[in-house]
């Protein structure tokens, strides 16, 4: 018996939960995905190290799609709106998410950023994640595909060092290929071999945002994403 107030002893109750720690995030992501699909928007989550060339890829994409596709971007950074400003200067409506100290975007931040209508009437929404090869891989944002940008200077063993990120990738974009003449030791086969060990269906495209080499293949891949049959998910409101 409880000696303080006579309320009775506590007993131990065991509750089986079996729920993902990301359940809340995933509900919001599913909600965002349903909205975007309904509006015919293909959302692409672009991840990669700081300096991999994510923003440059967006700038090149804006140029290549100008006049044919409408696009918008959400850019995540710990501080500053520089990436959003760069993408805006390339003619793309952009919204910056300044995460403060958070090392990744989560579904709630993206959902919030979408609320002022930046993705209305667009064909593609590019979500440029915080430069980081670890944390962003964990969070579903409501995208249709994950793209990981890796530059030619980063080392061929990057995929083996960051298997979680590359496992989640639908496409790897090898960037800055214009630097290859200065990198005689770069071994593309070694990079592809590393990818095959962490990415079940490895796909990689080589591009140079600077010269435009390979950008056509990237655009073709984006167009294929529009044609991919996507299951219509129930439009459930997460909150």
């Amino acid at each position, binding site marked *: 018996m409880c000696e303080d107030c006579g309320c009775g002893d506590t007993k131990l109750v*065991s509750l089986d939960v079996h729920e993902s*720690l990301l359940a809340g*995030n995933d509900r919001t992501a599913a909600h965002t995905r349903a909205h975007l699909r309904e509006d015919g928007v293909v959302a692409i989550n672009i991840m990669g190290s700081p300096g991999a060339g994510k923003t440059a890829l967006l700038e090149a994409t804006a140029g290549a799609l100008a006049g044919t596709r409408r696009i918008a971007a959400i850019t995540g950074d710990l501080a500053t709106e520089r990436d959003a400003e760069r993408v805006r200067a390339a003619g793309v409506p952009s919204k910056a998410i300044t995460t403060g100290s958070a090392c990744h975007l989560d579904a709630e931040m993206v959902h919030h950023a979408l609320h002022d209508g930046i993705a209305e009437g667009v064909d593609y929404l590019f979500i440029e994640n915080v430069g980081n090869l670890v944390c962003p891989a964990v969070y579903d944002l409501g995208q249709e595909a994950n793209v990981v940008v890796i530059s030619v200077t980063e080392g061929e063993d990057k995929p083996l060092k960051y298997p979680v990120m590359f496992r989640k990738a639908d496409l790897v974009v090898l960037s800055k290929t214009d630097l290859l003449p200065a990198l005689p030791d770069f071994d593309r086969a070694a990079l592809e071999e590393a990818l*095959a060990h962490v990415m079940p269906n490895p796909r990689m495209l080589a591009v140079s945002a600077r010269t435009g080499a390979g950008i056509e293949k990237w655009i073709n891949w984006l167009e294929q994403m529009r044609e991919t049959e996507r299951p219509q998910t129930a439009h459930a409101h997460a909150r």
Partner: protein
Amino acid sequence: MHEYSLARALIERVETAARAHRATAVHRLTVRIGPLAGVERELFATAFHNCRPGTLCADAALVIRNEDAEWRCDVCGEAIPAGSALYCPACAMPARLAGGDALILERVEMEVLGDV
């Protein structure tokens, strides 16, 4: 450092469950974290310990269970050995992850007033 975000999400989830059962305290939590979940277990435990003061989990023990990474062929079901390329040589098909990315709250043990 997303482990801190996850630890806070865990505590919120557990507190919701505990309040629904009118628990006075959480005694023990069991989570399962696979090697491909993208979560560093030790860092997650540290984050949990740093986030729990002032919550119903303030004195809760955290048990972290492991789960082995497992890749299989979707066609023939054969296991793809660790350290090899992620495709089935027999079927020439990409492997599918059959375990190892778990990030799951399995069980909450809490102290509930006996008469309730």
